[in-house]
C-alpha cells in the first residue's frame, strides 16, 4: 500500500510538468528542425530511394548498369536456385542464432535477476561487454580461437571430433550468437524482472515441482520479452556483414555478404540493390508480424 502513494504523486507531478512547458511556435519549430531534416533528406532518404530505383535497372557484364524499369533482378533472385539457397541459408543462420541465444541467455538472465545481489552488477556488465566492442575486434578474436591452429579447434581435434570451425556455418553461428545475444539477454532480464514471484510461490505451495513451476508459470510470463528478444536477435543477425564475411571466409555466404561483394567487387549494383530490397522486405515483414502479434497479446 505504501508503495502506491509515491508512485501516484510522481505520476501527478509529471502530468503537471507536461502542461507547464512553453511550446515553441511553428516557425521556430521548423527552423530548429531544418538542419537535421536536410541531413536526413540528402544522407538517408535519397540513398534509400536510389537503392529502390537501381533495383529495377538491368545489368550486363559487358556494358554495366543499364537504366530501365525491369524486374529482371527479382526474377533472377526468386527463380535461381543459387539465390533461393542463399535466402534459405540466411534465414536458417538467423534462426539458429536466435534459438541458441534463447538457450544461453535464459540461465544468464535468471542469474542476473535472481542471483546474489552483489553479483548482479558484474553479471550485467559482462553481458553487455560484447555490445561495447567493435564487431570487427570481437570477430577477430573468434578467428584466432576458431582457426585450424586455434585453441578450440585443438580441443576438438584431440577429442577426435572431425568438425571444422573456421569458415563453416558453425563458426559463423558462434560469432553471430556472441555478437547479438546481448539483445536477447536484455529483453529476458526486463521480462523476468517484471514477474510477480508470488505466482511461483503459489504454484510451489500447490504442489508443483521446480520444472513445472518454470515451464508453466515462469516461462509463459516472459512470453512478450522472449518475443521481443527473438525479433531483435533475428533481424540484427540476419543483417550482419562482418561476422559471416570474416568467419565464413567467402565459403559461407548470406544475403548481406553477397550484397557487399556485388556492390564493391562485382560492381553489379542493380543485383545488390534488389537483394537489399529483399532484405528490407523480410525485415519489415518480421517487425510488422511482431507488432500485430504483440498488439493482440496485450489486448487479451
Amino acid at each position, binding site marked *: 500500500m505504501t508503495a502506491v502513494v509515491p508512485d501516484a504523486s510522481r505520476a501527478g507531478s509529471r502530468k503537471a*510538468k507536461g502542461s*507547464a*512547458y*512553453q*511550446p*515553441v511556435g*511553428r516557425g*521556430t519549430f521548423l527552423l*530548429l*528542425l531544418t*538542419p*537535421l531534416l536536410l*541531413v*536526413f533528406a*540528402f*544522407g*538517408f532518404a*535519397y*540513398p*534509400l*530511394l*536510389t*537503392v529502390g530505383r537501381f533495383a529495377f535497372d538491368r545489368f550486363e557484364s559487358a556494358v554495366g548498369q543499364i537504366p530501365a524499369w525491369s524486374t529482371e533482378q527479382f526474377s533472377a533472385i526468386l527463380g535461381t536456385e543459387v539465390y533461393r539457397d542463399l535466402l534459405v541459408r540466411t534465414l536458417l543462420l538467423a534462426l539458429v542464432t536466435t534459438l541458441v541465444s534463447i538457450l544461453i541467455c535464459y*540461465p*544468464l538472465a535468471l542469474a542476473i535477476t535472481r*542471483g546474489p545481489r552483489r553479483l548482479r552488477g558484474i*553479471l550485467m556488465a*559482462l553481458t553487455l561487454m*560484447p555490445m*561495447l*566492442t*567493435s*564487431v*570487427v*575486434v*570481437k570477430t*577477430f*578474436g*573468434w578467428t*584466432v*580461437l576458431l582457426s585450424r591452429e586455434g*585453441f578450440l579447434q585443438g580441443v576438438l581435434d584431440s577429442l577426435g571430433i572431425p568438425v571444422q570451425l573456421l569458415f563453416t556455418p558453425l563458426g559463423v553461428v558462434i560469432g553471430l550468437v*556472441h555478437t547479438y*545475444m546481448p539483445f536477447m539477454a536484455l529483453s529476458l532480464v526486463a521480462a523476468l524482472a517484471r514477474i510477480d514471484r508470488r505466482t511461483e510461490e503459489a504454484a510451489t505451495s500447490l504442489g508443483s515441482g521446480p520444472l513445472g513451476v518454470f515451464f508453466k508459470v515462469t516461462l509463459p510470463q516472459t512470453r512478450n520479452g522472449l518475443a521481443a528478444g527473438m525479433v531483435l536477435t533475428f*533481424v540484427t543477425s540476419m*543483417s550482419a*556483414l*562482418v561476422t559471416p*564475411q570474416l568467419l565464413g*571466409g567467402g565459403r559461407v555466404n548470406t544475403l*548481406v555478404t553477397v*550484397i*557487399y561483394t556485388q*556492390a*564493391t567487387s562485382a560492381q553489379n549494383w542493380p543485383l*545488390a*540493390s534488389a537483394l*537489399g530490397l529483399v*532484405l528490407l522486405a523480410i525485415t519489415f515483414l518480421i*517487425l510488422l508480424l511482431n507488432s500485430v502479434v504483440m498488439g493482440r497479446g496485450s489486448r487479451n
Partner: protein
Amino acid sequence: MWATVLAVLAFIVAPLAVVVASSFTATGYLAFPPEGFSLEWYGAAARNSTFVDSFLTSLQLALAVAAICALVSIPASYAIARHPGRTATLLEQVFLSPLMLPAVVFGLGLLFVLSALGYRGTFVGGLLGHVIIASPFVIRSVLAGFRDMDPHLEDAAMSLGASRLRAFLTVTLPSVLGSAMSGLVFAFVISFDEAVVTLFLTGPSFETLPVTIFTYVQYSNDPTIAAVSTVLIAISFVLVALTMRSPKDSDDR
C-alpha cells in the same frame, strides 16, 4: 544452473580475452595461449603508418561526428520536445529509424549517391554516413533530457524577461548537459567502432581503424592487429565507463 552461467560468461569473455592476451605474445605469429610476454607489437603498431593513419582518421571522424550530431540533433530534439503533436511524433520516428534499418542497405545507397557525386572514398562521405547512424543515439538521449527536466525552470526564466534563446542557452541547455554528454559520447563510440556502412564508403584516401583491422584479419597472421584491437577495446571501454558515471554526477548537483 551456475555451471551453465559460468560457461556462458566464459563464452562472452573469450574472444576479447584472446585478443588482449595475444597482443602480448613474444612469438611472431598470433598464438593463443600466448607464449612469453612482450610489448613489441604495440611498438610495431605505432611504427606502422597504415594503422596510425587509420587511427587518426577514426579519431577525427568520431570527433567530427559528435560535433555535428550536437549541432543538428540538439536543436531538432528541442523542437520535437517543445512542439508535441502528430508531426513531432512522426519526425521522431523518422530520425530514430536508422536504428532498425539494416545498415548494409543504407551503406549501399550512400555508396551510390556518393559515387555519383564523386565523394566515394572521402572523409566527407564517411562523415555523412556516420552522422546518420550516430544521431539516433544523441536524439534519444537528449529528447529524454528535454522531456524530463523541470519545466518551471524554463518558464521562470522567460517570465523574468529572458528571451527563448537566452532561456535555452542559460537554463535549458545546462540542465540537459548530462544526457547530452552521454548521447555524444555514444555517438563518438558508435562512429569509432562502426564497420558495416564504412566498408561501403572506404577508399585509398579514407580508411578507418575498424576497416583496416577487417582487411588485415583476412590476409595476415601478425600480432600487430591484436595490439591495435586492444587499443580500440580500451578506448570504447573507458569512454562508456565515463558515461555510466555522468548521470550519477548530475544527480549529485
